[in-house]
């Protein structure tokens, strides 16, 4: 161990003065008893100017009440106290220690307050050790800033990903619908031809049969008693074939077949109407026709669940993509049929409004809880069990209606039912075409 006496008081003092951090000693009244070079260099005041004055005279930036309480707590508790650059960046108002490269204007500091005892162990005052943390602070602030940027970017990306997902889902869905539409149209077309000739054949058959029976009647009337007795096999044949019944039945069979053919023809027509293969473009379309064909297509799915009441208003054809609008009707009707219970009722309203037309699908089903009403249009949002719902119906419908410059809104009272309302303008604005040509013109 070094002999303490070998190190003089002067040596210790000059060491304290030279040390590369701020050192202050103050008494209980905050009067400065000692101050080192660091403090002089950074405050621009010589030690002589500092010593003997209170902290607040020489460092007016120090909040007096707080500082006094701090000093007081160190004296009373005989314990350390601290300040950190994070909460109190510039305890002393010193200039930045990175004058050239740093972007910060002031020195960041950590400060420790510690009790100082005199030779007899009594309380002499409080020491302050001030360290320069500008470099660390600058670095950390930069990192924090970078972190914020990253976070921003991250959330922007998350948004993009969500949009991409949505777009992909829509693409998938519309591709699927297009494929189904094409398939339906193809099948419809294939069936259309044979049905056509079967129809005309059945009609011909019907006419031929009328003629045939007329002929038979004529023969019967022409043959007399004698002739009948001469040919008893004729009566036997007639009995065996149950001729009277056959005549009656043939009529019914023909009528039934014609009815059946009518139905097939209608279904084929609906399929074509619904799929609109020929109309993936803007066309004037009659929404009531679209609603009817859509209803026909899904009739089997809803007929046992709900009574459908049509309250069609007087509307004119609008410019739209028929197949896509039918897709919206289909989604709304299926959702409504899923929502209703016993005594289910689905009302379809339509009418004119605001220079456009509206179609409402109203059901008396379970309704939509308030807290999810703004989520149902999100892609993949579904409350239905796996396999029942994809959660895509409404999001797709929404984007279709928006693409048509219309609005799709919902009103629902949980427990009482829901009303989905699509409003569509009569004509599509020509903006897009104009806009591009205008840009090109410049």
């Amino acid at each position, binding site marked *: 161990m070094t002999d303490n006496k070998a190190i003089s008081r002067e040596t210790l003092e000059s060491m304290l003065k030279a040390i590369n951090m701020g050192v202050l000693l103050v008494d209980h009244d905050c009067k400065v008893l000692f101050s080192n070079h660091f403090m002089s260099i950074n405050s621009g005041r010589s030690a002589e100017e500092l010593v003997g004055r209170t902290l607040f005279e020489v460092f007016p930036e120090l909040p007096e009440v*707080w500082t006094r*309480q701090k000093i007081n707590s160190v004296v*009373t*508790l005989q314990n*350390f106290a*601290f300040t950190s650059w*994070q*909460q109190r960046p510039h305890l002393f108002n010193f200039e930045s220690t990175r004058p050239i490269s740093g972007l910060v204007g002031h020195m960041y500091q950590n400060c420790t307050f510690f009790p100082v005892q005199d030779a007899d162990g009594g309380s002499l005052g409080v020491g302050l050790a001030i360290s320069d943390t500008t470099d660390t602070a600058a670095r950390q602030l930069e990192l924090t800033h970078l972190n914020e940027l990253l976070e921003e970017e991250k959330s922007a990306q998350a948004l993009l990903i969500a949009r991409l997902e949505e777009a992909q889902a829509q693409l998938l869905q519309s591709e699927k619908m297009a494929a189904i539409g094409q398939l339906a149209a193809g099948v419809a077309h294939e069936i259309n031809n044979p049905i056509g000739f079967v129809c005309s054949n059945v009609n011909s058959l019907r006419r031929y049969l009328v003629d045939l029976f007329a002929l038979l009647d004529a023969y019967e009337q022409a043959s007399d008693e004698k002739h009948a007795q001469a040919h008893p096999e004729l009566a036997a044949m007639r009995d065996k074939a149950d001729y009277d019944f056959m005549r009656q039945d043939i009529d019914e069979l023909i009528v039934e077949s014609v009815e059946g053919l009518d139905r097939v023809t209608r279904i084929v027509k609906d399929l074509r109407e619904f799929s609109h293969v020929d109309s993936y473009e803007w066309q004037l379309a009659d929404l009531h026709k679209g609603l009817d064909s859509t209803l026909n297509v899904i009739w089997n799915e809803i007929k046992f669940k709900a009574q459908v009441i049509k309250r069609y208003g007087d509307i004119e054809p609008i410019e739209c993509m028929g197949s896509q609008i039918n897709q919206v009707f289909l989604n709304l009707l299926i959702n409504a049929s899923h929502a209703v219970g016993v005594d289910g009722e689905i009302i379809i309203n339509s009418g004119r409004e605001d220079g456009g037309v509206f179609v409402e699908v109203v059901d008396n089903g379970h309704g939509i809880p308030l807290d999810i009403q703004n989520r149902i249009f999100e892609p993949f949002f579904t409350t239905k069990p796996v396999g029942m719902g994809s959660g895509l119906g409404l999001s797709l419908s929404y984007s279709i209606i928006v693409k048509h410059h219309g609005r799709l809104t919902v009103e629902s009272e949980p427990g009482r039912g829901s009303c989905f309302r699509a409003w569509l303008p009569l004509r599509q604005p020509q903006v897009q075409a104009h806009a591009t040509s205008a840009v090109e013109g410049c």
Partner: protein
Amino acid sequence: METLAALTEDQRDALQELMNIAMGQAAERLARLTNTMVTLSVPFIHPLIREQDNLLIPDHLRRSSMIVTRQSFLGELRGEVFVCFGSMGADKLAELLGYSDGGPAQQEELMLDVTNILSGACISGLAKQVAIQVSYDAPSILVHREESANALNELNLNEHLAMVLEIRFEVQAHQFSCDLLICITERTAGVVVRAIDRLLYEL
């Protein structure tokens, strides 16, 4: 190795006594500093509550803590003090400690001050009882949760800890309370055990 895990009933009582004395001194100094009534609950001592690397924090703290601060004590007795602040933080003490406005940085600083004062009072009290020197590092914010109640789940403990003391502070006139966890490392717990034994011997 001496740990506090295997304390006898007597030793446990002695430790309790040791802490009671330390707490009493801490309360008295705090009261002197702030000119108010300071109540300290009787410390609740869990010797060696540890499961793998997780501190089993009592459920009520786990639920209610919003902000947790920490401060190390170093020397012959080593460890860390954690202070768990509830939703109202230390706002009620602002004036007592000379704070004027209530900005977020100042609220944090206030909590760090409270942490420093409380841990200093407790640890210095204990250190004095066992006649050793301790030093402290600057306190810092460990977890800051806006709303989550599980701030304490994030504590990752790496050194073996031998003892957890749970202390509840209340400054009655100011409706302030917070909870302190004092964790002492296993390697230095022997200091406390020896002090306990001496206390028992002197009795």
